[in-house]
Each structure stands twice: as C-alpha cells, then as structure tokens.
C-alpha cells in the first residue's frame, strides 16, 4: 500500500465540467513523482482537488492517504494528516506576519495530532526551527516579520512556500508549478530544499509544465498528463523525451479537443 493513492479519480468544476478524467497514481515516501503536462491539461485542478479545494468536486474514484479515504475531508484535515500543497499563486494575508502564520499553522497541526487538545510549540523551539529553516533555504530574515505574501516578489513567495513545507514537515508534498517565476539561483535553492526533505519521511509530487525543475529535483517517476489523464508513465528519461518531442507525441489522436468530456 502506497502512502498516497489515487484510484480512478474524477474531478469536476461546480458547473459539472469534468477536468480530471480518471487518474490512478501511487506515491510513496522517498519517491519523487513528476506530473508533466501542457497548459490547460488539468494539472492544477488535480493539485487543488488533492488538497480539498471546495470549488473542485470529486465526482468519482477516491483519494487514500495511508489507507484512509480522505476524499471527503476538508483541506485542514488533509493538512493535519500530512498533505501539503505548495501553491502556484500563494495568497496574500495582509496584517499577518510570516512568523505568526507559521506558528499558528504548526499549533493547529499539533492540536489535531494531540486529539484536539492545545499543545503549542514552545517559543524557543519555534524560533530555533524557523531560523534554521530560513537560513537553509536562504530566506532573508526580514521576510519573517513581513505580512504573508503581501508585496512579495514571485521568488520570495515560492521560497516562503518551501519554508512552510520545511516547517510543517508533511508526508506528501505537492508542488504546483513551483518553478514558475524563479530565476536559476532561486530555483536551485528551492529545488535543493525539496530534495533534502524527500526521504523516509516524505514523498513529493512535482507538477510542472517544463522539464527545467527536474534538472534540480531528480524524479523517480514521470507521468505525462494530457486532457485530464495520465497518458504515459516512465522514469526520468521520459522527461527528456518530452523536452525533445513536445507533448504532441503523447496526445492520442482524436482526443486533442477534449470533445469526449
């Protein structure tokens, strides 16, 4: 039994339009999976649906985490069980500093783990962890007292997403287009941060349009995602082939328009 299992997962928008059309996937700890697909293929919808976004409805199939069916759980309950999504476009929360937000998130998860009883992290422990993670991910110290994502550059937002991942220590991390908006230096740092966390405690699902990030995060498995489905599976050589041949080669004839949905 894999840690995260998607069984014939179907996801639709509120108006009923089906976007994800039957996905089977197994992700375990110590594994990096890459989902690669063209724009509009439904990759981000899949990421949101896995995290429990209320605007995306699972219309068929199920999501299992450690054998538990989490398909009907709210986003916070999924996070408390060890799921994490690094957002493509993280939202600003004016008036809430990165530090306060981080502490609240950690305490919410600790509370859930303690069966609903408050179990706040000590100030000293929190501070040590936070500073250590910020230094490792080269997040400037001043960002800690800034309001979450407010006025952040694209690179700062992505680094803070990875900082959150490092602090929350999820078991499965989903990274949605984390490479977009990053220059090479930032990409190297962010990818290094992910790579470091992948191991016996965590597996990762990297969702991306380009193969670029995969130069820095070595995928164990690559899945080509077109029109709401995984159309090819392979190792990292598949990413290379995609880069050379483009997605066209993977589009089954007749389904490019998505007319069968």
């Amino acid at each position, binding site marked *: 039994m894999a840690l995260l299992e998607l069984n014939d997962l179907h996801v639709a928008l509120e108006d009923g339009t089906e976007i994800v059309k039957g996905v089977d996937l197994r992700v375990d700890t110590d594994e990096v999976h890459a989902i690669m697909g063209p724009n509009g293929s439904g990759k981000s919808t899949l990421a949101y649906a896995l995290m429990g976004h209320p605007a995306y409805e699972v219309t068929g199939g199920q999501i299992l985490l450690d054998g538990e069916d989490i398909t009907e759980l*709210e986003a916070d309950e999924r996070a408390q069980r060890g799921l994490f999504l690094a957002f493509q476009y993280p939202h600003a929360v004016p008036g809430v500093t990165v530090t306060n937000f981080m502490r609240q998130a950690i305490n919410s998860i600790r509370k859930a783990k303690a069966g609903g009883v408050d179990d706040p992290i000590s100030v000293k422990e929190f501070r040590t962890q936070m500073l250590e993670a910020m230094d490792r991910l080269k997040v400037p110290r001043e960002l800690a007292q800034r309001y979450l994502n407010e006025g952040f550059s694209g690179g700062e937002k992505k680094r803070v997403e990875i900082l959150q991942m490092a602090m929350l220590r999820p078991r499965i991390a989903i990274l949605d287009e984390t490479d977009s908006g990053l220059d090479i230096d930032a990409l190297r740092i962010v990818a290094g941060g992910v790579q470091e966390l992948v191991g016996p405690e965590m597996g990762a699902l990297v969702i991306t349009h380009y193969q670029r990030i995969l130069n820095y995060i070595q995928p164990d498995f690559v899945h080509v995602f077109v029109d709401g489905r995984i159309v090819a599976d392979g190792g990292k050589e598949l990413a290379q082939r995609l880069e050379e041949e483009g997605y066209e080669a993977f589009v089954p004839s007749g389904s490019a328009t998505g007319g069968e949905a």
Partner: protein
Amino acid sequence: MASTETEIVQGIGSDYEVKYGFSVPEDYFFKSGRGLSHELVDAISSHKDEPDWMRKFRHKSLDYFLARPMPRWGADLSGIDFENIYYYIRPTEKQADKWEDLPADIKDTWDKLGIPEAEKKYLAGVGAQYESEVVYHKLQADLEAKGVIFLDMDSGLREHEDLVRQYFGTIIPQNDNKFAALNSAVWSGGSFIYVPPGVRIEMPLQAYFRINAENMGQFERTLIIVDEDAYVHYVEGCTAPIYSSDSLHSAVVEIVVKPRGRCRYTTIQNWSNNVYNLVTKRAVAYEGATMEWVDGNLGSKVTMKYPAIWLLGERAHGEVLSIAFAGKGQHQDAGGKAVHAAPNTSSVITSKSISKNGGRAGYRGLLEVGKGAKGARSKVVCDALILDEESRSDTYPYMRIDENEVDIGHEATVSKIGEEQLFYLMSRGLSEAEAAAMIVSGFVEPVTKELPLEYAVELNRLIQLQMEGSVG
C-alpha cells in the same frame, strides 16, 4: 511572550458568559429606584455632597434631556425604556485603595477580570468603577509626588473644585446632544486626570467600568487635562453580565491637550449584548499638541460613538483609530470627527469594521476644515470586512471643507473573506474558524499594533472569541 501566547490559547474556547458575563449578589450601600426625575438628581447630588453650582448644572441638564427629542439617525434606540433604568447605585460607602478592603463579591469580580494583576504588571494607576461609583482607586506614589492628579471624578470635584469648574462641560456642553445632557444630569464616577507641564507618564493609567445589576444605567464622566509638554496614555475597559433586559451606558469624556502635550485614550469596549452604549467623547488640541483616540468596540447591543478632536492650535495633530466588530444582534455605529480650526493642522482617521452573523457595523465620520486653516492635511481610511451574506456595513463620511489650501484624502474599501484566502490557510492545517480569525486579526492589525502588547493580546483574544463558531 510565552505567557502572552498561553493567554491567547487559553482564551480560545472560553466564552463571554464565563469570563465576563457573570454577576454577583447585590448588597449595596444605596440603590435608587427605577426612573428619572428631579428628585433623583437631588438625591445623587446630596449623596455626593456637591457644591450648589453642580446641583444646578445637573437640574438644568435634566431639563435639556427631557426637552430634546431622541436622535432619529444612527442606530435604533426605540428599545430604551428610560423609566426602567436604575440611575444611581452606590455599592460601598467608602472608596478603597487596597483590593482587600472591598466586599468579597466585588473583589472577586475584579480578580476574575484580572485588574489587580494587571495593575501589578504594567499600570501606573487604576480606577475601578462598579455600578455608579469608583470603588477602588490608586496612583503610583512617584507620580503623585510629581503633581499628577488621578482621581475619580467625584473626588476630583471635591478636592480640586476650581480646576474642575474651569473645564467641566466646556468641551462638551451639557446640551450638546440628548445623551450628553442625560450624563450631565446624573453623572457619577469616571476619572479626573491632570498631568502637570513636562510630566510624561510612561505606563498607562487604566479605568475599568463594570456593570453588575440588571437594568443598570452607568454614567461616568471623565475630564483629562494634559498640560504643556506632558504625556499620558489612558486606557478604559468595560464589561457587564448578560441579562435578558437592557442596560444603558452613557459616558461623557472631555479632554484638553495644551501646547505640545500628547494624550492617547484607548478604549476596549466589551459590554454584554444587552447594553446600549451611547457615548460622547471630544478633545481639544492646542498648538503642536497631539490627541489620539484608539477605540475598539466589540461588545454592546448598540453603540453610537464618534470620538472627536478639535485642532485649535497651529500644527496640532489628531488621530482616530477605530475598530468595530458587530456580531449577531449588534449594531456598531462608530467613527470619528476631526475639526481643523488652525493652520497646518493634521489628522488621520482609520476605521476598520467587521460584521458577521447578521451584525451591522459602520463608519460615520465628519471632517471639517474651517476657513483660515491653511495647510491642513487629513487622511480618512475606512475599511469594512463583511463575513457573510446577512451582515451589513455602512459608511457615512461627511466632509465640510471651507479652505482651499488643504490636502485631503479619503479611501474606503469593502471586502469579504475570500474562499481562496481561506483555502490557502486551511491547506496549512488551520480550521475554518482559525483561518477566518487570522484574516480578521490581520485586517485590524493596523490598529492593534498601536496598542501596548497586553492590550493587543486582549483585543486579539476578544476577536477570537467573537469568531468562535461564526463561520461554516
């Protein structure tokens, strides 16, 4: 920080009823009958052994009150039954300057509210008003030695009659509005503060107002005089038990800030949801002086309050920072007024209102620039956050500008908590209520960051309480 954090966490999950909404048995030195009359005014004045001018002032004020119609604007006040209110309750015969000297029930109340503990930790002086009288009062000895006066208003009148008479009712005339007239007729308690020239009081002075009896009317009266180059920060808090019938709180606060002086007046209003809170607050600021109102309104059934600043001297500066939080059955009609009557004066009004569960919160403000107030600058920012479809926010920003050489800015925003923002926070493990509370505390952060840490924590905790179970 550690204790702060623990306090926040402990606050979550408790509720108003347990923390503030309790009442204790009445065992009072004197309790008037219900209703309002000239006989009652006489009784109050006699109890206080007042000079004749004050007795006359009260009677005349009552006439003004009776003659004036109820205000027809703002909140719905038709539920107030003036004949059902107790206007004067004297809980103890004498004021204490040791908490131990208070009757057990009253002392327990203050202990539960945490006032003696706060006094030890971070206050320069405390006045604790219970029903109509200030039952406990104390100022640090070194401040007394510097000539600072911090007394309840009744003692102020007894001990400093000339100073009181010089200012009392001059900033807010007795006929200013119906509720100022009512207060002028039946006032009791409140604070009298005088800060001598050049004296800066670094720690806040605090007054705490507690209603215990059902159908109580509390009418404290405060007068603060900050002399040249002096500084004081005065903080008031207020709570009451939850009753099924209404109580009335109607205060008058007058403040004079002399040249280059500075006064900050912070209110954390947390009345129970059966209290009508109708308060008149006004300050005058002379040359180079600064007046700041920090006004947090979380409780009450209805609040109408618009702290005002008259900028009378050149380069005087005024600020109003206001938070109004309206939940189920609440109407917070809050705001601020700035009147520029001298050149190069400046003002900033920042209003943050939050409404949820059918509550109604609004900003009502007046900005006035008189002829000749050249170089006046003012900025008004009103932001409203509406948490659900049943709730409501109103903005009434009135302006009267009679001078051309001015710089006036006004911004207003109305926002709702977005699904995307909630989802983002929830994806990090915060429950929906925690996520919403976090967005709200971020929204009010421009105001809370102005508060001393202890009060910022208190305000955030109260907001958390208001948010409990409010979403989803």
